[in-house]
């Protein structure tokens, strides 16, 4: 049998153990008792024997004394001396009565019985036990003898007058009364029996006994014949064993007399029997108590264990609130305390894990997962409560620049500051999360849906307006925010975030700061994405084209340079604007492949034109990513060599932000290119944050003023002032200054008057396919003199 429960096991163990101990103790005590009982009965018999012997001796002494006293009685002696038989008899009976003797006999010197109280009539006879008659009174002895079939303890004392003249024989009857007296003193059953050897069939005759008649017979039947010494016997009387001592009392006569002292084993064992019963009751009681006790002990152990188990199970279920309530100082208390500590430890760790899992460690904002969960939950609540939600996705502008140029420490500082401003700006009910990188998300719950959903976005933009200070230096970080609404824009978290994301990109693209999601964003977005995937195949399918926009010298009106601009002739979409795919190519890194293709095609075209006799400097735009490619100069050199193009015919245009992202590397790459003899130009000048000190360090030959300054300079005096000073600045630095986005004659004229070196724009020509460019060149004789308005319009 297997016992599963600890409590049952403890109980069974204790009870079985105690039962074994009790049984063993009971067995040992019982055995010892039995042994003790036998020893005790033996001892009682021995003591009884001694007491018995002593009592008989005392009786004999008493007899002797009495006999001596009688023998010395003068009147008695006188009666004897004078043969006064009547007097003798009366003295004997008188004296016998006085001391309680049962037999008084006077025997003369010849051994004849003179007088006998047993037979007052008197028959002339010899005294039966002449051996008792001793001349010296000091030799007198007592003896058990039989007179007239009765047992007597006899003593014979000589009567001296002063010489012996006869013997006084006195006897105490050995009768039931004596036996009873002896029993009283010895606590043993006492019997006196006479053995008559002349009757061998039934040799024993009872003289006196404390027993009832039937038992007397049984006792006599149990006595062995002819025993000379004290014997130990076990005699069964009425079905009860008696331990017996058979003591021969005298052997002066033919009739042997024995005393049998005995005691029932039962009576001796009775006390032990009671003890055994008591022991048994005690054993049963103690086992019962042990059951109760062990149940209590087991409960005492198992109940806290159950408490501990349920506590552990609570912890397993993630309930760390309820501590184990066991106030004990023992091991279980220690265990409970350990469990409590463990509970606390697990709770803390789980909290940390949850924090790691659901919080952004940098800003302590919720992370993407937490935000997704919150959003899902909020959607459910909103759906149930019938209110609306707004999801804002915010991406920092120029963060990558800050992070890469000023280090991650600054980037982290910016992120923390932005998160702090976000928290300070939005409602407390909003959930602010950092989705990753410089992307943040804000969930705003609206009770009614009547709020202006753009208010939050505007406040955030305002909040980020103030520059972020890092070690006292201001950092300007803008942001673009996309806004999506539940339930209008999506029914689930994923859709809402995606919509907000799309809106954010739209805002970024359109530089509007924020944008609420609109369905067409989504399609254009998806268009971008699919374009991107198709762009991968565009190179192989030869769908990319380079168009060239001429640069016109304002000094000579010659066209000596062109800018290569990429075009994608999509088989189904037609011509795809580079603005649609270049930014995404930059984001994905695909731009490197594009740049390589553009460089190769531009250099090839340049070489082709060269062989055709047209010496045109070709400008190629490369991205910031390309500037980090250290192999770029070698690749350029190889291309130039391959197509037999003079390095000075290749001009590489970079944006200010392009080299600002990793100025050190960019510097190295640009230096190598300059060493090759390749021209370098700064594109879109005036939009970035680069200081002129940077520009001065670069081996550039050309500065291209951004089109945003040029296109409205004719109507905006401030812009024209900027252009003028920029031109002066470029000239002062020894740079050629090129104006982009020249769209009208006024601008052209103004630029010429300002001393700008080259101009480029739709007013002169849009970007043209190589063949169209050649045609345009030939039509203008390789020049573009400043025409009148009509001419310009004709050309466009």
């Amino acid at each position, binding site marked *: 049998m297997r016992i599963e429960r600890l409590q049952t096991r403890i109980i069974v163990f204790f009870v079985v153990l105690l039962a074994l101990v009790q049984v063993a103790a009971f067995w040992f005590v019982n055995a010892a008792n039995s042994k003790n009982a036998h020893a005790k009965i033996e001892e009682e018999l021995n003591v009884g024997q001694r007491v018995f012997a002593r009592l008989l001796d005392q009786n004999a002494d008493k007899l002797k004394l009495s006999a001596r006293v009688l023998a*010395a009685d*003068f009147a008695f*002696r*006188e009666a*004897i*001396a*004078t043969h006064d038989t009547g007097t003798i008899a009366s003295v004997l009976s008188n004296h016998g009565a006085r001391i309680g003797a049962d037999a008084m006999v006077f025997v003369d010197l010849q051994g004849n019985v003179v007088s006998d109280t047993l037979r007052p009539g008197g028959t002339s006879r010899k005294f039966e036990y002449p051996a008792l008659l001793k001349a010296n009174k000091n030799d007198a002895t007592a003896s058990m003898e039989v007179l007239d079939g009765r047992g007597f303890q006899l003593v014979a004392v000589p009567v*001296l*007058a*002063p*010489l012996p*003249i006869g013997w006084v024989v006195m006897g105490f009857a050995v009768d039931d009364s004596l036996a009873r007296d002896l029993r009283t003193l010895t606590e043993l059953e006492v019997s006196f029996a006479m053995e008559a050897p002349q009757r061998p069939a039934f040799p024993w005759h009872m003289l006196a006994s404390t027993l009832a008649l039937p038992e007397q017979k049984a006792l006599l039947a149990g006595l062995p014949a002819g025993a000379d010494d004290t014997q130990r016997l076990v005699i069964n009387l009425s079905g009860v064993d008696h331990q017996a001592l058979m003591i021969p009392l005298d052997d002066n006569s033919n009739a042997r007399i024995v005393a049998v002292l005995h005691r029932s084993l039962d009576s001796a064992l009775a006390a032990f029997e009671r003890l055994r019963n008591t022991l048994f009751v005690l054993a049963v009681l103690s086992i019962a108590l042990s059951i109760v006790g062990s149940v209590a002990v087991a409960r005492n152990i198992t109940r806290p264990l159950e408490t501990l188990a349920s506590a552990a199970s609570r912890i397993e279920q993630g309930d760390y609130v309820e501590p184990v309530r066991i106030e004990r100082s023992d091991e279980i208390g220690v265990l409970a305390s350990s469990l409590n500590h463990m509970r606390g430890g697990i709770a803390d760790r789980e909290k940390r894990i949850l924090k790691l899992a659901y919080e952004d460690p940098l800003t302590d904002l919720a992370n993407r997962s937490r935000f997704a969960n919150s959003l899902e939950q909020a959607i459910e609540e909103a759906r149930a409560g019938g209110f609306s939600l707004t999801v804002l996705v915010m991406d920092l502008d120029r963060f990558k620049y800050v992070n890469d140029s000023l280090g991650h420490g600054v980037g982290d500082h910016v992120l923390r500051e932005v998160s702090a401003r976000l928290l300070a700006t939005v409602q407390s009910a909003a959930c602010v999360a950092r989705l990753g990188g410089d992307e943040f998300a804000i969930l705003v719950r609206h009770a009614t849906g009547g709020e202006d959903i753009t208010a939050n976005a505007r406040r955030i933009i305002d909040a980020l307006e103030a520059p972020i200070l890092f070690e006292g230096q201001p950092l300007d970080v803008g942001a673009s925010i996309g806004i999506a609404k539940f339930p209008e824009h999506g029914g689930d978290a994923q859709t809402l975030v995606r919509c907000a994301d799309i809106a954010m990109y739209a805002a970024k693209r359109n530089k509007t700061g924020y944008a609420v999601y609109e369905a067409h964003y989504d399609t254009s977005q998806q268009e971008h994405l699919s374009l991107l995937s198709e762009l991968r195949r565009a190179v192989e399918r030869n769908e990319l084209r380079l168009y060239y926009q001429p640069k016109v010298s304002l000094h000579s009106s010659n066209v000596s340079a062109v800018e290569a601009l990429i075009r994608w002739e999509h088989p189904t979409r037609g011509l795809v604007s580079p603005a649609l795919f270049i930014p995404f190519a930059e984001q994905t890194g695909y731009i490197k492949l594009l740049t390589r293709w553009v460089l190769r095609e531009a250099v090839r075209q340049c070489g082709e034109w060269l062989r055709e006799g047209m010496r045109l400097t070709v400008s190629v735009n490369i991205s910031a990513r390309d500037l980090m490619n250290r192999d770029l100069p070698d690749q350029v050199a190889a291309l130039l060599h391959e197509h037999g193009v003079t390095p000075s015919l290749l001009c590489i245009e970079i944006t200010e932000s392009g080299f600002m992202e990793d100025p050190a590397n960019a510097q190295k790459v640009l230096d190598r290119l300059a060493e090759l003899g390749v021209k370098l130009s700064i594109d879109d000048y005036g939009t970035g944050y680069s200081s002129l000190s940077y520009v001065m360090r670069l081996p550039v030959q050309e500065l291209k003023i951004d089109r945003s300054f040029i296109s409205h300079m004719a109507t905006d005096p401030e812009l024209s002032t900027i252009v003028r000073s920029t031109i002066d600045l470029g000239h002062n630095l020894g740079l050629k200054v090129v104006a982009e986005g020249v769209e009208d004659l006024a601008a052209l004229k103004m630029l010429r008057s300002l001393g700008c070196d080259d101009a480029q724009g739709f007013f002169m020509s849009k970007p043209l396919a190589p063949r169209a460019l050649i045609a345009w060149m030939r039509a203008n004789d390789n020049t573009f003199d400043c025409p009148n308005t009509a001419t310009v319009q004709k050309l466009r």
Partner: protein
Amino acid sequence: MRTTGGHVATLLTMLGATAAAGDFTVELRDAAGKPLANAVVYVTAKTAASAPAAPPHARASIDQIDKEFVPRVSIVQAGTEIQFPNSDNIRHSIYSFSPAKTFTTKLYSGREAAPVLFDRSGLVVLGCNIHDQMVAWLYVVDTPWFAKSGADGTATIRALPPGDYRLTADSPEDQLAATESDVKIDAAPSRQLVTLKAGA
């Protein structure tokens, strides 16, 4: 005490001196040949009436000294009065249940009791009722010719007239059987050995 015995003997010798007679010495031995002291002998004439009777008021004495009869064995002629002085400073109460003379006399220290006349022959065993261990043997005989043996075991009957006699010897202390024999006495002193055997 021997001096007392001596007086008796002297007295008897003086009485017998009137008749022509010789001394008769008896050597008393036990069966082992050991001389028997304190044994008594006496003779009675086998021929008629030749023995003189005891003189009137013949006296003898048996003292009590240290809870003992002294002498323990005495022999007197019938008709002799025995004086029982008490040399002890305690009381004695002497008695006899013997057929020859039954009596009791209380003896007080320092007070002379009346003498007791022993007029019948026979052995009188004397005891003290106060002191059971005291015992004395007094032979009362019908003849003037008797003697008691000394330490050497010889007893001499003096001035015994010649003639035929019956000799009786007894030694009560030793509990030997009394013996009788016939003796013929001449004028000359004679001597005879008597051996006493153990008897009832």
